[in-house]
């Protein structure tokens, strides 16, 4: 068991810097998810921890030992790849035993560990099959098993669920979480799917363009996004970001037209701001209440909710309403939200303005 410390790490390919000074702490036994859009550098970072990419500048240490110059096999890590990287010409058992054989582990010990991992993952009856005879979910489990038998200090996952269909992904998500709860091994997990991040992580690290936008507990990121990027990246459907003007006094913001929303932030100077409101925090309000008048463009009733796309000036606003509404496309409705649910961001830096409430 060990923690992972990443200190001011840089990486460039030729002229292009893909990692621009990143520091992450993954305390012992934690499940840390690196999330961000594709090309943000999250996979590169993971591959540097694995030793598959060189580190240009900065240090990475595992359990207090700097591993910049250590061979991948000596880092005491195990990695699970998006496409599983199972050896197609070896059976499940041989795939799982592979690294132990290379390390000249005694046969009996190998057999014991493979059996144990197979038991944990429910693979016992598939041990003699070849990867191509397995379903996607089973292959995913074999890839997990290959990591588990090594009993490493750190697990690295590179988008392990991306190749699965939606239903299986939800199921494997729960299984992974369960396995982590049992093994309690430090885990770094890369994904572009913020729902995976929200549901599995102890700590989420949001990356964008080679830098860390924000790191913290899932709900912390949801409730207090540090900037507009995190605001719109975490949460689905994405947060509405509306340009507005703060009058500087009574906690009101004028948006396009005559619309007004309230916010709970103290001491915001007068001037332009970006106002962020999550679709699920919008509701239809009385005509005389504060709110924004929008023209409905599409309605998507999902049964439990109604997803509304509506037009405010030339901007599209989405709202996730709890009730079923009678409006038709073209109708005007008035949407409002509670002041504490209004996030304010600086119009220039796009950073969060103070804390709400």
């Amino acid at each position: 068991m060990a923690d992972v410390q990443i200190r001011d790490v840089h990486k460039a390919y030729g002229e292009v810097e893909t990692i621009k000074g990143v520091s992450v702490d993954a305390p012992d036994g934690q499940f840390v998810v690196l999330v961000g859009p594709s090309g943000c550098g999250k996979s590169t970072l993971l591959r540097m921890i694995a030793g598959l990419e060189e580190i240009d500048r900065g240090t990475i240490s595992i359990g207090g030992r700097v591993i910049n110059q250590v061979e991948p096999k000596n880092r005491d890590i195990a990695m699970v790849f998006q496409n599983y990287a199972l050896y197609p010409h070896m059976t499940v058992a041989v795939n799982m035993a592979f690294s132990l054989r290379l390390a000249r582990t005694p046969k009996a010990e190998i057999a014991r560990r493979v059996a144990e991992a197979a038991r944990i993952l429910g693979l016992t009856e598939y041990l003699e099959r070849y990867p191509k005879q397995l379903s996607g979910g089973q292959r995913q489990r074999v890839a997990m098993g290959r990591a588990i038998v090594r009993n490493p200090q750190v697990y690295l996952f590179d988008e392990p669920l991306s190749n699965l269909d939606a239903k299986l992904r939800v199921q494997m998500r729960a299984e992974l979480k369960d396995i982590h709860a049992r093994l309690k091994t430090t885990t770094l997990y890369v994904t572009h799917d913020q729902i995976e991040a929200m549901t599995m992580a102890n700590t989420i690290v949001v990356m964008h363009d080679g830098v860390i936008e924000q790191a913290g507990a899932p709900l912390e990121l949801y409730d207090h996004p540090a900037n507009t990027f995190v605001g719109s990246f975490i949460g689905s459907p994405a947060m509405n970001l509306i340009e507005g003007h703060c009058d500087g006094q009574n906690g009101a913001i004028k948006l396009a037209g005559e619309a007004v929303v309230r916010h709970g932030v103290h001491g915001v100077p007068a001037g332009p701001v970006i106002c962020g409101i999550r679709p699920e925090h919008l509701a239809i309000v009385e005509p005389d209440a504060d709110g924004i008048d929008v023209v409905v463009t599409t309605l998507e009733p999902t049964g439990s909710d109604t997803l509304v796309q509506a037009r405010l000036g030339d901007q599209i606003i989405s709202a996730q309403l709890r009730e079923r509404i009678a409006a038709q496309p073209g109708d005007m409705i008035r949407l409002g939200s509670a002041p504490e649910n209004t996030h304010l961001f600086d119009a220039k830096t796009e950073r969060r303005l103070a804390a709400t409430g």
Partner: protein
Amino acid sequence: MSDSDQKPAVETVPGLGMTARARLTNLTIDIVLFVFGILMVLPLVLLVANAFKTPQEMVAWPPTIIPADPTLDNFRSVLGETPLLRWIWTSLRFSFLSMVAIVITSSIVGYVLAKFQFRTLEVIFILILATAIVPFEVYMIPLYFQAQSLGILNSIWGLLLGYLVMSFGIFLIRQNVKHSIPDELLEAARIDGAGELWIFARIVLPLLRGPLGALAVLSFFQAWTAFAWPIIVTTSRDAYTIEVGLALFQTGFTVDLGRLSAAAAAVLVPSVTIFVILRRNFVQGIASTGVKE
């Protein structure tokens, strides 16, 4: 079938879902292809048949495919006159060694060029690709003098000198590695603690069985059918490959058709048999020559 909506049901054969017309077309095509196929192999079939015929039967019209009075005289006299078996043995050894050399060099270099990204390697790859279009005939004269200065004319090593490497083989393996072996597989092995040589031998090679088989068959037959190079490298009758031996044998003044056919048949029958057995490997290999990046 869409036709059945508009046309009367008479045209549709019940249960088969195919119109009578379509069946007639297929039958016609089958007949055409069948006849064409027979015609394509007929010259070879007749040649082999001739090998077993008596001189009288050989000039009979129409030619018979199964000899009325089969005889082995032709073979007996060819074997008496020429070192045919020795030529075949030389060709076999030459082809086998060439195959081994090409499979080894192509697999290693093809793998490295596919999976190790360094600027220098790109240059090497382009160089290899560029020389691939240069026909052997263009550079075989200087190569001959190299063989001469090494003193390996009239030997199997001289033959081999021209058939040690195959640009296309390198290209074929590179493409296959690129398309069928994901980087993650190699990375997983590195994390698992495997050395580079080990990865190549135990992971890459087993996964390349198909293309390596195709390449082996291709390179073997390339050497087996080689003509221009063997004819300049070998000048003594005992060192000929079967192709050269046959070609020079058939220019002889006194050689009759029966013995010529027997000699040719002795070469054709085994190689066609091997081809029919290895057809899949062959087709895969040849087909991949046309596949571009």
